[in-house]
């Protein structure tokens, strides 16, 4: 049996593709997925006929039966392995892991992993949905789950509102510099504190965007990429996953995430620790999610975030550049695949805000209300 560390660097992201982000009226998720996949294949410089696995993350707002097979039909493909996978935003990294495992086992050779959704111009009811029977108490929406976690974090660790603002400020600064970002408007800590309360204690500027768009990556072995003459292949150094109870009321704690678990596997596979990481792309659907993920990876201690991240530490000229294309708060609200694309660009040295001499990039994806988690570490 292959062990974890032997897998480090053996597989690569050989191509990336995306659509525009923002309002894309009239486009189906299939149409968006096809565009992103076409761009990823062009980026890798390979024909679709070489792809024998097509793995798609279920569109959040528009679920369809046999979605993976519909996408394959739209692309004129007959993949050996294909289908749609639902675990919220952590599915992107799970699918990359599934692709690698399938290639390693000899079941396929080249995989496309993709995601598309159109809640901006389509149906966004998913995000304000009733949370089961507890909706009789007025318990609605995705944001509320994060808000109740944020409140508990403030209770346990004395976390201040402006600490969350440090995350929003960094993401918004980087998004403002990104010509493809949906929201290009910098903020200050003062303007963050004045942004309207949504579901208290969440402010508007704590919350990610709602966006149409798609992204895709091509996964293959490093050997295969070399054989195909792909110049820009980026090695996958580490991967890890973790999951906890979907019910917030049934968790041991509200203030820890599965980044602890997924990070442990990914760091072990890569032979790296938090202190070795040069740049991060952290799932920032809400600022509390990014804060707890950074704590749980060990970048800072719980309760010390505000002091650690002060003075622009997460900004492009700081100690740990974070979400260098703007993340979910500023580039696009897409659940996570854009963070992987930005990680690939950083490792290629082609990012819009390039971190000089970055040798690795850690990417976090998570889904549900910090229910599922995935960690990906890329190398240069």
């Amino acid at each position: 049996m292959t062990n974890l560390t032997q897998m480090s660097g053996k597989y690569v992201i050989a191509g990336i593709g995306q659509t525009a982000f923002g309002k894309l009226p009239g486009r189906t998720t299939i149409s968006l997925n096809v565009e992103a996949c076409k761009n990823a294949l062009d980026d890798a410089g390979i024909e679709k006929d070489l792809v024998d696995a097509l793995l798609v993350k279920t569109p959040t707002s528009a679920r369809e039966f046999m979605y993976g097979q519909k996408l394959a039909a739209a692309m004129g493909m007959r993949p050996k392995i294909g289908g749609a996978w639902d675990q919220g935003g952590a599915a992107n990294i799970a699918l990359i892991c599934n692709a690698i495992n399938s290639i390693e086992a000899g079941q396929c050779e080249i995989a496309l992993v993709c995601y598309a959704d159109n809640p901006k111009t389509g149906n966004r009811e998913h995000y304000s949905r009733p949370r089961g029977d507890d909706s009789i108490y007025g318990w609605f929406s995705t944001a509320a789950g994060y808000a109740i976690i944020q409140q508990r974090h403030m209770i346990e660790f004395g976390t201040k509102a402006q600490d969350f603002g440090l995350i929003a400020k960094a993401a918004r600064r980087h998004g403002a510099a990104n010509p493809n970002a949906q929201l290009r408007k910098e903020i200050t800590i003062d303007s963050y504190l004045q942004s309207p309360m949504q579901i208290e204690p969440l402010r508007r500027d704590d919350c990610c965007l709602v966006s149409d768009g798609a992204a895709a990556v091509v996964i293959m072995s490093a050997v295969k990429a070399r054989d195909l003459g792909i110049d820009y292949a980026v090695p996958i150094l580490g991967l890890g996953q973790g999951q906890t109870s979907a019910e917030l009321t049934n968790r041991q704690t509200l203030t820890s995430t599965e980044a602890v678990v997924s990070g442990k596997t990914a760091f072990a596979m890569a032979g790296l620790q938090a202190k070795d990481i040069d740049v991060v792309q952290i799932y920032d659907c809400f600022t509390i999610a990014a804060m707890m993920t950074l704590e749980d990876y060990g970048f800072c201690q719980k309760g010390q975030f505000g002091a650690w991240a002060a003075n622009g530490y997460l900004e492009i000229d700081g100690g740990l550049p974070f979400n260098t294309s703007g993340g979910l708060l500023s580039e696009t609200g897409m659940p996570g695949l854009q963070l992987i694309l930005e990680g690939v660009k950083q490792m290629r040295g082609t990012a819009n805000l390039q971190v000089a001499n970055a040798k690795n990039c850690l990417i976090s994806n998570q889904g549900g209300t910090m229910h599922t988690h995935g960690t990906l570490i890329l190398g240069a």
Partner: protein
Amino acid sequence: MTELPHPNITEINKPFWDGLKNGELLFQECQNGHRWLPASDFCPHCLSSNFKFTKSSGQGKLISWVVYNTAHHPAFQNKVPYNVAIIKLDEGPQLISNILCPNEKLTPDMRLRLTIEQEGETYLAKFFPQLHDNHT
């Protein structure tokens, strides 16, 4: 007036909802002593299906809360700003509910006691702050 959302009453959770109608907040307890909510037909700890519904003392504490300033459902439009909280019962299980006090009076870990309110055909478990601790 728009009706509140209805709970989805099933064979499994019917004893819980019947309990509220009878003035009791019930949680589940398996033969191995695990306790849980919401209702399920297997213990989420040991997967035992040998369990009973046990009456809670109705005493608990506030773990966390949020305040909605806008309604996500027409039935809550005249309730904003309203709170939704996670309550830990003294027996262990946790649940989602509302605390019946001004939102600015909510404090971490505050002691709570059960009250059952009827809204339409549904009986809801809600909580009041305990103004006096037992030892004062």
